[in-house]
């Protein structure tokens, strides 16, 4: 289990995060939501070890270091890179692969197995620039899996892809959770996480809500998180956030 105790982070005098206390259990899936500038990416970078908190501490109940697989936001720069899908996926193993310019057959077999699992084995010799948004998202997840992680961090996995692909990505995320991965993802897509994920962490500099969407998503929490008056209605037992009909508009 990963536990965050009073985590804070500042860029100079700009306090981005403060008093973040929460924990992530093995095998669970958590969606971090919040407006732009809420500190979602900063929190993700702290979990990645890329940033060191300026206050608080992170505890890991496991004696071993947590192996993290990271799936960044869809980036056009990455897609124009002259790599095939298989080459990019194999790069997930670069840190522990042998010190020679090529990958072993066992590593190639592992990459093929992951690509097949994600349904894009037939694309392995395609260049990244030839992939659709959904296919590229799967390739990024495949690269993360190639790094043999126990924790998967996905930064905005649903942005820039269509509704059908978004559902496919979600199905895949759930399948990976079933396989035992701990998954933490960030998203702007409030209703998507509310409908699909068992736990959400609402963030706006600090934690404004943490728990099951049906319990956490109230008008008050949405206001504290987004600074906007929104109504929360229930549809088929699931919370749905909509524009307020009383005094709609931002405060």
């Amino acid at each position, binding site marked *: 289990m990963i536990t965050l105790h009073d985590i804070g982070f500042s860029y100079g005098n700009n306090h981005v995060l403060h008093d973040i206390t929460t924990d992530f259990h093995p095998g669970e899936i958590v969606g971090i939501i919040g407006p732009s500038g809420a500190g979602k990416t900063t929190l993700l970078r702290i979990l*990645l070890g890329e940033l060191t908190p300026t206050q608080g501490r992170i505890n890991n109940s496991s004696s071993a270091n947590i192996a993290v697989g990271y799936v960044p936001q869809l980036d056009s720069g990455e897609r124009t890179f002259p790599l095939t899908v298989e080459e990019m996926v194999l*790069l997930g193993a670069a*840190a522990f692969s042998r010190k*020679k*310019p090529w990958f072993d057959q066992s590593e190639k077999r592992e990459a093929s197995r992951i690509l097949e699992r994600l349904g894009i084995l037939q694309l392995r010799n395609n260049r990244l620039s030839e992939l659709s948004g959904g296919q590229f998202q799967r390739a990024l997840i495949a690269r993360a899996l190639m790094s043999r992680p126990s924790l998967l961090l996905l930064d905005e996995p649903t942005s820039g892809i269509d509704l059908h692909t978004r559902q496919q990505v979600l199905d895949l995320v759930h399948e990976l959770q079933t396989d035992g991965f701990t998954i933490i993802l960030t998203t702007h897509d409030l209703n998507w996480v509310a409908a699909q994920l068992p736990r959400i962490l609402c963030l706006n500099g600090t934690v404004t809500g943490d728990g099951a969407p049906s319990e956490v998503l109230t008008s008050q929490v949405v206001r504290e998180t987004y600074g906007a008056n929104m109504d929360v209605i229930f549809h088929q037992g699931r919370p749905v956030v909509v524009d307020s009909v009383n005094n709609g508009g931002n405060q």
Partner: protein
Amino acid sequence: MSYFTDPFQYDFFSRALIVSVLIGALAGAIGPFVLVRRMAYIGQGMSQSILGGVALGVVWGLDLYFGAAVAAGLSAALIYFVRNRGVPVDTAIGIVASTLFAIGVAVVSSSRDRRLNSANLLFGNVLGVDTEDIILVALVTVIAAIVLFRNYKTLLAVTHNSAVAAAHGVRARLMEVIFSALLAMVVVTALRVLGVLLVAATLLIPAATATMTFRTFRNITIASICLGTSFAIIGLFLSFHRNIASGPAIVLVGATVFAMNMLTSTTSQRNRA
């Protein structure tokens, strides 16, 4: 056949050929990384910057390569320093490279030292290649080849996405340092044959030509090494027979092949459409 054998009557040609082939291979190997990182400008900037170090080094009685290496390191440090003060990276490179280049031109123009021939420093001169150059370039090439061989995968991972590579356990900062060192090695050792103004072209043209033809990064790198070597050999013969500076000759051969490849690719794409 005399076209190919005559030049070998002169010792300097053999020496220049060895050095050119080694530099062509080295630049060809590093070139794809420079290309995909969109670092053409930093290659150009670093190569221009070393003129100041070379000129001051010669005037102060130091080794030419020592001055070049110090200037390459200094320019990288200054670019980093200026960039960290909030100046955009292309502006930082432009200011630092132009300043160090200007120092070099100022020293060269006011010096009567024969070793500071501006045309040779700017565009290369095969006549200046001696045995010490061969030893140095061979040594640097072997070191660079070993470093690249052992770190190819991690360098590629960092080049593609540094944050992801670091998250997956790659020592990303170390790889950045290694890459900068490899780039500096190419720039400094290519000084004698290519001159400071044309090094960037030899980094980019073989890689850009290979990228148009090959799909995988591995094949692009292999092709870029072969092309870099070929351009160096053909360019050197051209330089000898047409009595033009070696640097421009090598670059012009590469540019011609690049243009032909581009036109062929465009035509075949149109035919397929």
